[in-house]
């Protein structure tokens, strides 16, 4: 997957950071459109974009295909919401609680998963994710089970869609900034060597399993953050968001955008969410459309949208 006959044009750090700042500034202007629709869509895209990018740390950078990423999203979402609603804890602490839960979940699950490779790894991530789903689904008294956890209100000082949008923007921008740093760090580079050749990486003195586990935990952290944001944004949570098709959807978003580029998954999330909004206003058969997009993608755009644009040198896309 992905071409390597061409030399990839490396952009300097400065240009990349400039890009994030410009993007953030543009997004900051979004609410001026006064459109509830765009504010809603914007928040959704930011949240799911972060979720997809957290997965991509595992998928595109470390080469680990996780079929159970929805677990950390769900853990983050339910932890934050439950701490606020049932334990009466204030939002900032509940948010931190969600992050801790996400990292712990990733630590426990990851510990077992990194011992396996390829299909078995994927199966185990799926199995664990289904356990988490099943627990949330069945523990009616705590999570509301199938009927869901409803009535999750905006926290006191973020009590409007616009305010929450800005909050989400800041959180996501900071998260992406951190992810950017990690990915361009020595640790991030070793992750890519693990992706390219785990056996070889062992023999340059790297404890591959440890690094994979750390990547797992970082990934879980950011997924949990996006989950926590989602719970409040959506004002309700249902066990559905832990069921495996959710994990598949975020995989598709990453692939659509391009897993070998930093912003790829964010692009993918934007396209999927925007298309879903369009399609569902005309028909209920969104899965059919998404399946077709996925198939199309696999056959004609193996590098995702960003990969395609890079190939065509349409414009220099930051890595």
């Amino acid at each position, binding site marked *: 997957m992905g071409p*390597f006959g061409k030399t990839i044009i490396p952009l300097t750090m400065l240009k990349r950071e400039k890009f994030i700042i410009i993007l953030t500034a543009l997004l900051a202007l979004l609410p001026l459109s006064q459109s509830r629709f765009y504010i809603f869509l914007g928040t959704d895209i930011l949240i799911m974009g972060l979720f997809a990018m957290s997965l991509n740390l595992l998928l595109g950078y470390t080469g680990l295909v996780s079929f159970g990423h929805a677990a950390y999203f769900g853990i983050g979402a339910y932890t934050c919401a439950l701490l606020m609603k049932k334990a009466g804890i204030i939002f900032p602490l509940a948010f931190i609680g969600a992050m801790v839960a996400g990292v712990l979940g990733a630590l426990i699950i990851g510990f077992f998963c990194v011992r396996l490779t390829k299909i078995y790894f994927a199966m185990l991530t799926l199995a664990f994710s289904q356990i988490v789903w099943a627990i949330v689904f069945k523990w009616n008294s705590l999570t509301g089970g199938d009927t869901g956890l409803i009535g999750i209100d905006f926290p006191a000082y973020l009590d409007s869609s616009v305010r929450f949008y800005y909050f989400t923007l800041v959180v996501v921008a900071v998260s992406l900034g951190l992810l950017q740093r990690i990915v*361009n760090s*020595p640790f991030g580079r070793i992750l890519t060597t693990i992706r*390219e*050749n785990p056996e*070889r*990486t062992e023999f*340059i003195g790297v404890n*591959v399993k440890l690094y994979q586990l750390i990547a797992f935990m970082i990934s879980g952290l950011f997924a949990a953050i996006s989950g926590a944001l989602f719970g409040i944004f959506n004002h309700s949570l249902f066990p559905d968001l832990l069921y495996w098709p959710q994990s598949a959807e975020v995989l598709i978003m990453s692939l659509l955008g391009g897993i070998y580029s930093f912003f790829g998954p964010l692009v993918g999330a934007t396209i999927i969410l925007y298309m879903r909004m369009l399609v569902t206003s005309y028909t209920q058969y969104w899965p059919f459309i998404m399946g077709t997009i996925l198939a199309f993608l696999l056959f004609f755009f193996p590098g995702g949208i960003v990969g395609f644009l890079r190939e065509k040198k349409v414009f220099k896309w930051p890595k």
Partner: protein
Amino acid sequence: MAEMILTVENIKKSFDGFVAVNEVSLSVKKGEICSIIGPNGAGKTTLFNLITGHIPADSGRVTFKGIDISKMPPHKICRLGMGRSFQRTNIFPRLTVFQNIQAALVAHRGMGLNFFKMVDPLFRQETAEILERVGLKEFSETMSGSLSYGYQKQLELGIALASNPELLLLDEPTAGMSAQETRQTIALIEKISREKGLTLLFTEHDMEVVFSIAERILVLHQGKLIAEGTPEEIKQNKEVQKVYLGEGR
């Protein structure tokens, strides 16, 4: 008594009943250039995998620099000072040649768990030196996956060298190479090992290569060590001749 950098004692490994390595014992002197030869299926690569910790031995012991490494994981063995190249080229295809070597340096210098520095400016000088030494300077920014086979093997050597090993295990370093490439590679390997006082243990099929640079040769056949000695001794060894009837170039 010269210092033994590597000792293998009675190492044995079976796969599903098939004995791949049958109680092999050997030792390698520090600074020596030693070669393991044997027909296909003799167990050379398995023996290497046992030494480097990639697969666990059923019985026996491996000692490196006086330390028992029999149960050590590969990355720890590497950190002790053992380097290795693999039979099928093992590089990082979607990274540039430069990044391949740089990554090895990053890992070796213990910077792997650094999350916040930028990786690009690290070790640029040393990486360039290694590239120069293995003759890949002009390919610095090329995607390593697009290099020709011969250059990839050179890169592999470079990656192995970046970990500053004391003992270098090379699994068929000239496999698939033309006569010219082979000569170049061997000259390179010899030069580097002399420069850095490296101990070299390599497997080979090309007898010309073996007899030209090996100081000592070990012959493996069906998992057993059947002969050991200087190139002259091995050439005259009846057992070896029997085994190799028709083999070699």
